[in-house]
């Protein structure tokens, strides 16, 4: 990783450090050319890269159903959605590049397993309804996480998130619409939809990360206005959103502890299986190896193409220099 100069909290940086802290306190945006602490830069690179990786790994479970989509309309919608995710990957890698790191480096870190992507994509899409459940639950959880990021202190990330959130909310609606249609379809379609919600509900709750008491990165991110709400606050917000939506769908959420709590003004809900979460995070989920191998294969198979593009660009430059001379 190439750092743009030293930016530690050493005494010689004291005025910059103070200015940075004042701007954070005033809820101002930090821009790429501004001084920032090393830690702030590292935290952002880690988070934006993980987010970008999640977008491009997330293309796989849904891409899995493009060639089998059961109507041409759904096929068009799904291709457009997967294309949006590639586009989100592009915005996010570009946002990370403003912090002085190249996309190639970040992809290498992903391929070497040294940077993460959202663990949810290590679950398989085994039925068409999973395309709907990913849209409704996974994109729904992602939006809950991401809307506050539109106000993140780092300008390029915040601006990328504004556009991404608009498209994500469209994705969530298509997922809901897909499940709504299945839930009102044949008995087999209804079963397919319920089975899918049964499998994706708990993993989607895990997307907000471990409980606040065990979250490792939260405190600093909150202080820097990168993160605005805690994992548990966001998880609660998500559950409050999906319970009435599940009722509208006519599908059941597989959580016996789900109940309205009038005193709190929120739904109570059960505890996800955090052991399962840790296992999948460690690489033992159903698709961890498959997802990363797919990425590595696509990257390796594309190497000669990227090399050819570079060679052609170099030759073209040389030719135009010769012509100009």
């Amino acid at each position, binding site marked *: 990783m190439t750092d743009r100069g030293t930016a530690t909290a050493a005494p010689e940086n004291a005025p910059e450090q103070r200015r940075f802290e004042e701007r954070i306190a005033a809820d101002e945006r930090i821009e790429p050319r501004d001084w920032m602490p090393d830690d702030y830069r590292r935290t952002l690179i880690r988070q934006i890269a993980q987010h970008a990786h999640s977008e*491009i790994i997330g293309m796989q479970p849904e891409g899995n159903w493009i060639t089998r989509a059961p109507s*041409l309309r759904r096929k068009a919608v799904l*291709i457009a959605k997967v294309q949006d995710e590639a586009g989100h990957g592009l915005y996010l890698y570009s946002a990370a590049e403003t912090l002085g790191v190249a996309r190639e480096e970040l992809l290498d870190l992903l391929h070497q397993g040294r940077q993460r992507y959202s663990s949810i994509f290590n679950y398989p899409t085994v039925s068409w309804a999973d395309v709907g459940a990913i849209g409704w639950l996974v994109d729904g959880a992602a939006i809950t996480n991401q809307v506050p990021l539109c106000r993140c202190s780092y300008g390029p990330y915040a601006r990328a998130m504004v556009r991404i959130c608009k498209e994500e909310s469209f994705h969530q609606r298509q997922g809901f619409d897909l499940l709504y249609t299945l839930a009102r379809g*044949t008995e087999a*379609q209804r079963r397919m939809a319920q089975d899918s919600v049964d499998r994706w509900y708990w993993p989607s709750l895990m997307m907000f990360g471990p409980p606040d008491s065990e979250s490792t990165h939260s405190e600093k991110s909150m202080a820097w206005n990168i993160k605005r709400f805690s994992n548990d606050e966001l998880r609660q917000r998500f559950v409050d959103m999906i319970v009435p939506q599940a009722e509208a769908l006519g599908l059941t959420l597989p959580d016996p502890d789900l109940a309205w709590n009038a005193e709190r003004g929120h739904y109570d809900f059960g505890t996800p299986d955090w052991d399962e979460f840790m296992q999948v995070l460690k690489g033992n989920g159903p698709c961890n190896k498959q997802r990363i191998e797919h990425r590595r294969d696509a990257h390796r198979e594309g190497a000669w193409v990227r090399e050819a593009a570079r060679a052609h660009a170099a*030759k073209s430059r040389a030719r135009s220099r010769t012509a100009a001379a």
Partner: protein
Amino acid sequence: MSGQERGSAHAGPDTALAAYVLRLGDDALVASHRLAELAARGPQLEEDVALANTALDLLGQARSLLTYAGSLEERLTGVLRTEDDLAFLRGEDQFANCLLVELPNTDFAHTVARQLLFSAYQFELYSRLAGSADATLAGIAGKAVKEVAYHRDHAAGWTVRLGDGTEESSERMAAALEAAWPSTAELFASDPVFAAVAAAGLGADPPELRPAWEACVDGVLAEAGLARPEVPPVTGPAGRGGRQGVHTEAFGYLLAEMQHLHRSHPGALW
């Protein structure tokens, strides 16, 4: 399988138009499907976006054309087949797409070669159809020609990059062109359906498209430093090919994958 789809010698303008529009729709549908297979498999992220975008444009064309083919057919038979009926409930021998679009994505060069040769053909075709005496077809083609111009430029750009790039890329691009080239003759072969729509001012007679297509492709190959492959056209059984419902072996697998879920739930809505 009706005689109109195969191209009966007695096709009148109405039956010929229905068969013609179905051919165009099948071309776009199958070309789109092959590109869509590459989701999350592009050599770089920009290509994931571009290939999906092209697939989406072609699918949009396919939907308009198949819907229109279904309505033309209904006027003749009284039975309506929707875009989904036509896409998911016909067998291999009822598809009338050309063989070029069903060639597999062996490597990125094969995808680029197929897309260059097909987009250049679609560009010449839609340019003419934008002036068709059939207002619906003219409308569809008028919109599609703008999309196809981008597809052609995109494929041409990659043909040049790969042809001019490295020794490996140049060899791969040449091999891919050689693999696709024999299937291009079919694009320019006429038959009674094509002749009937051309005579009525509704469609284009394929041989007329050839000179402009050759000029375009030759120009790209020259810039890429590649030679036009010298390989003979594919010879089908009794001269039959994709337009007559005789396809490549790979096409059966494409349809099996595409149609499986839809066919597993007869009558279901999605």
